[in-house]
């Protein structure tokens, strides 16, 4: 069994991994950049070492330094978390070359799934439905246009090396095709150093549904059911749940089996996620595979009772899976709301600074995976995720009501967060009835976060009282300071005029 893990990450996911390790009696080594000296992951680990300056290119992405730190601290394994180096096949290979265990899939599986066209080909071979389109990067423009017409507009141009929406273009009609192709290529080139682009049918506002899989070293692959991740802002997930209201048991079984085939087709090992798009006619298509632990893994943990981080550690230690597919049972309903340091009332603009006040919710069915505390500094250098609030309920109604209750209780001040937005989603009728797709946020929150409580009158009362109190204390302070040469009456008058 692994006994000492270096965690090549920060924030909530580093804390999450430390917690899993600690419960298994595994030691943890944290690494931290200059601005993370007082961060929670640095303080909760068994050991912690500095690895450089604040920008991740000078710390969390410096492969040499991370591997050297692991060796120095006597770690026998590296957990990459998500983001940073998690889906870097070269780093995975280097970790193993250094004699350390990589807590993740084989480097080849990461590389294969990282190249979108190669992945599409492999999936097609494995009988996993893919979005109609080309299986190879575009070489000839005229040919490409013909293909686009065959598929039928609108089509999507996507970077083969892609991710994160860069090098992606929707093309609605024939005339737009050529200029769009050129922009997509140049964007892909500058973002990934690789200008290969391919064509997919554009699905308008599909649902985003993904399957969690686990695969051990002995060829056993199981899935742990789905996560519904259609509630997105800026093409990034913000609310996730399991199960999805959309899936029938038959569809769940078919998609789950496809997910297992997808994992098998790339020689996968450890925890991974197969993302699907589901169109209006309930056709599902392989979108991509995330070859790592997902941000939203807790909703699966809550419904299956399985701790995914612990499973990752066991699999990486060479222990066979302790569950067969038949033993996996989804119970109740789980929802996650991501708490980002962003202002939902101002187009989700980042909001950095000090967390001045924190009073998180509690009670039955509430879990929080967080990387923050009162007095912690939220820096602009990294991803804006602060915390994930997760609830479990015996059914979806209870889970939605519970999440609303928890978000109503949540007090986090000093910076702006997506807490009020999460609450607005829970109170939204279409969300409550399950009628949504990836266009939900744009459709329902055109003008930013709806104020679900309408307490502007109370705000007025509060501001007035605070203002009066402040004026009174200014009079007192001023009176104390100047009492020898000014009458109280004058002081009071002056304070009034200052306003």
């Amino acid at each position, binding site marked *: 069994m692994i006994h000492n893990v270096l965690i090549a990450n920060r924030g909530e996911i580093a804390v999450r991994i430390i917690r899993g390790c600690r419960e298994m009696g595994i030691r943890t080594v944290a690494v931290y950049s200059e601005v993370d000296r007082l961060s929670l992951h640095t303080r909760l680990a068994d050991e912690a070492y500095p690895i450089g300056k604040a920008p991740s290119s000078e710390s969390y992405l410096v492969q040499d330094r991370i591997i050297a730190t692991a060796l120095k601290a006597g770690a026998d394994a590296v957990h990459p978390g998500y983001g940073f180096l998690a889906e870097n096949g070269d780093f995975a290979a280097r970790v193993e070359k250094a004699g350390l265990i990589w807590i993740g899939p084989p480097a080849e599986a990461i590389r294969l799934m990282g190249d979108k066209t190669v992945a599409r080909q492999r999936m097609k071979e494995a009988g996993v439905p893919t979005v109609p389109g080309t299986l190879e990067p575009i070489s000839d423009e005229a040919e490409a246009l013909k293909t686009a017409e065959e598929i039928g507009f609108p089509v999507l141009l996507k970077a083969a090396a892609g991710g994160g929406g860069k090098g992606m273009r929707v093309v609605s009609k024939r005339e737009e095709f050529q200029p769009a192709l050129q922009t997509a290529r140049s964007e892909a080139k500058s973002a990934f150093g690789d200008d290969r682009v391919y064509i997919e049918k554009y699905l308008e506002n599909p649902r985003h549904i993904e399957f969690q899989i686990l695969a051990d070293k002995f060829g056993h692959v199981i899935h742990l059911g789905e996560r519904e991740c259609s509630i997105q802002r*800026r093409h990034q997930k913000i609310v996730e749940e399991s199960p999805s209201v959309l899936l029938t048991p038959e569809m769940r079984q078919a998609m789950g089996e496809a997910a297992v085939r997808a994992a098998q087709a790339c020689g996968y090992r450890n925890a991974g996620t197969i993302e699907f798009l589901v169109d209006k006619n309930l056709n599902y298509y392989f979108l991509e595979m995330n070859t790592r632990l997902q941000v939203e893994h807790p909703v699966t943990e809550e419904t299956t009772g399985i701790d995914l981080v612990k499973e990752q550690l066991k699999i990486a230690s060479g222990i066979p899976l302790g569950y067969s597919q038949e033993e996996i049972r989804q119970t109740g309903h789980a929802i996650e709301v991501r708490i980002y*340091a*962003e*202002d939902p*009332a*101002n*187009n989700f*603009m*980042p*909001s*950095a600074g000090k967390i*001045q*006040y924190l009073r998180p919710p509690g009670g039955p069915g509430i879990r929080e995976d967080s990387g923050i505390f009162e007095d912690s500094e939220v820096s*602009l*250098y*990294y*991803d*804006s995720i602060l915390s994930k609030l997760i609830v479990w309920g015996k059914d979806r109604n209870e889970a939605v009501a519970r999440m609303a209750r928890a*978000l*109503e209780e*949540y*007090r*986090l*001040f000093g910076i*702006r967060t997506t*807490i*009020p937005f999460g*609450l607005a989603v829970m109170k939204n009728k279409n969300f409550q009835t399950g009628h949504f797709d990836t266009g939900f946020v744009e459709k329902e929150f055109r003008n930013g976060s709806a*104020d*679900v*409580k309408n*307490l*502007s*009158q*109370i*705000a*007025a*009362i*509060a*501001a*007035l*009282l*605070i*203002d*009066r109190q*402040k004026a009174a204390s200014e009079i007192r302070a001023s009176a104390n300071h100047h009492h020898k040469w000014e009458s109280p009456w004058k002081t009071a008058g002056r304070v*009034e*005029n200052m*306003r």
Partner: protein
Amino acid sequence: MKYFVTSEEKEYTFDLKEENGEKKFLLNEKPMTVDFKQVGKKPVYSLLVDGKPYDVWAESQNGHYTVAVNGQFYRVKVENERSRLLKQLTRGAESAEGVVLLKAPMPGLVVRVKAEKGARVKKGQGLVLIEAMKMENEIKSPVNGVIGSIAVKQGEAIDKNAVLLEINAE
């Protein structure tokens, strides 16, 4: 004394009176019972309005308050009879020349300036792209107008509230 409080575009008129030694609190002439207490040393308050409790957090900036009631944020301005009168008297002198300064809502890196000097822009049009927290954020024009001088350039690191460019509003 009468107070005029503007909370998210809505105006409320309050009257604080003292009758027979008892404090009275009237909102738009309607009396209410208000109990107000600070919790600890931070700007956290507990408010009981006609028996209903509210948690309040308050920040003040440039004469405005940002008040969070039960976690929901509101922008509030408090004026009294005197300050309002003063404002009415000085109005006109105060008002801007039609020049709007577009400021950075957060620190970050300027990825791209999407408008040139002299260009006519529309309200809501994206003008500057700033990267922070691994995301690109489009700063939009708050008005219709013509771009004046541009204060930043691509690749530049900027602080919060740094002036990005001027717009001559129309």
